[in-house]
């Protein structure tokens, strides 16, 4: 039978998620609510980022039994997080046939220097990035999807906006360069020349790029889409809010019709209380600074 790399198939699964919303869930019940509300995938984790922040201490991969419970509860793809650099947690997630691994700064890093060599795995990885260099370094390590880091668990979209704008302005800079200048960019970003060349020619990352970290409202989600995100992760924003089901549905529709302000206005009505936000200047742990 003909060949196509596992990496291609993994990048292509991310393509199928485009225009969708991936929601953090902690129980099978929440997973079902998310699926019924129109999530295109769920992220299974024991505690959502806002609670991880509140609890402090070391945060690790979730109990595989809990993840399996969520896999059985829904028919959409199930993702789960492992710690940065913790390749054994990743091996465990692969062993339970997770659809996507998030090597995530939301958990406590297990390695302060090296990320996981993601080329050694059959299952796909998504990684966070706050600029183009981080994104291309993760892709070089085998990530088949990228998301902004944002600042998870804050309900504050400012960091996701900053990261998306930064990545896209760096892409525009590379597109505008002469070809003989790309060698120096590769050196500056610490990535192979071929990746820089891809960005120069295609005006985009070689993989799908979602927004994540601090998205709490339909307007936040639409903002990220208008800034160029191909889809949105919503972590604490849904199940930390007053009416999770309604808010989840509204965010899904806002992502589909992200330029229709009239529809987003209607979707924003009567959503109940949004999650209580915290300002990144008021918090002690900046998760986005983990894993560069």
């Amino acid at each position, binding site marked *: *039978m*003909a*060949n*196509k790399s596992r990496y*291609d*198939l*993994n990048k*292509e*699964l991310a*393509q*199928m*998620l*485009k*225009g*969708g919303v991936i929601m953090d869930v902690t129980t099978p019940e929440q997973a079902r609510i998310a*699926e*019924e509300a*129109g*999530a*295109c*995938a769920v992220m299974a984790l024991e505690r959502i980022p806002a609670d991880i922040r509140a609890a402090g201490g070391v945060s690790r991969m979730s109990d595989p039994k809990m993840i399996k419970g969520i*896999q059985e509860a829904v*028919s*959409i*793809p199930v993702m789960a997080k492992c710690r940065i650099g913790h390749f054994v947690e990743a091996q465990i997630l*692969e062993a339970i*046939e*997770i*659809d*996507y691994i998030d090597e995530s700064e939301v958990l406590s890093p297990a390695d302060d220097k090296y990320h996981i060599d993601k080329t050694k795995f*059959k*299952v*796909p990885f998504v990684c966070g990035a706050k600029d183009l260099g981080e994104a291309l370094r993760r892709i070089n390590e085998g990530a088949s999807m990228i998301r902004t880091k944002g600042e998870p668990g804050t309900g504050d979209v400012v960091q996701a906006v900053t990261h998306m704008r930064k990545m896209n302005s760096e892409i525009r800079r590379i597109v505008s360069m002469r070809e003989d200048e790309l060698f120096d960019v590769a050196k500056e970003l610490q990535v192979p020349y071929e990746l820089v060349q891809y960005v120069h020619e295609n005006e985009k990352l070689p993989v799908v790029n979602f927004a994540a970290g601090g998205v709490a409202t339909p307007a936040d989600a639409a903002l990220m889409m208008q800034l160029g995100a191909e889809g949105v992760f919503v972590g604490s924003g849904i199940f930390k809010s007053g009416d999770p089901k309604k808010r989840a*549905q509204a965010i*899904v*529709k806002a*992502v*589909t*019709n992200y330029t*229709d302000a009239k*529809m987003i206005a209607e979707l924003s009505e009567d959503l109940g209380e949004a999650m209580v936000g915290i300002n990144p200047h008021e918090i002690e742990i900046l998760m986005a600074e983990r894993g560069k």
Partner: protein
Amino acid sequence: MTIAVLAVQGAFIEHEKMLQELGADTFEIRQKSDLDRHFDGLVLPGGESTVMGKLLRELDLYEPLKEKIKQGLPVFGTCAGLILLAKELSNDEKRHFGTMDISVKRNAYGRQLGSFYAEETIEGIGIVPMTFIRAPYIEKVGDNVSVLATVDGNIVAARQGNQLGISFHPELGSDLKIHQYFLDMVKGA
């Protein structure tokens, strides 16, 4: 020739690019007012069928599109799009358009580790690349449905009148043969 592409979620841009390359005009359907425009054919792309099925109903697209398909509008569904067309889903109580007399099994090859690539012949088209991503396959077809391709004994492409259903993703990669086949269907309609 104008082809509308359902763009509520999924890999719709990939379809648009291929159709444009073959000289068709395309536009996206994201809400009811988009249906005011004229179109000669409809593409239901890959993505998550649960999301598309839900948004079709909530954005008031479901009834008008179903009516158009029943009246003979040429339609081309890939992966999730095939699920939207199926009259029956063997492992899901939900039904969507249900206009095509086929029974489809969702996630028939399992999770992402079961995703694969093949090259096989489609009747009337020839050998094509086939990318299966958490794909469904067709378990049963009605009398009016022609089976166009099988892989390992499972039906992966079928046609019933103006409805073309494919369980893999012809919108990935660069082979335009299946899209050309659909445009020829639209021309002949």
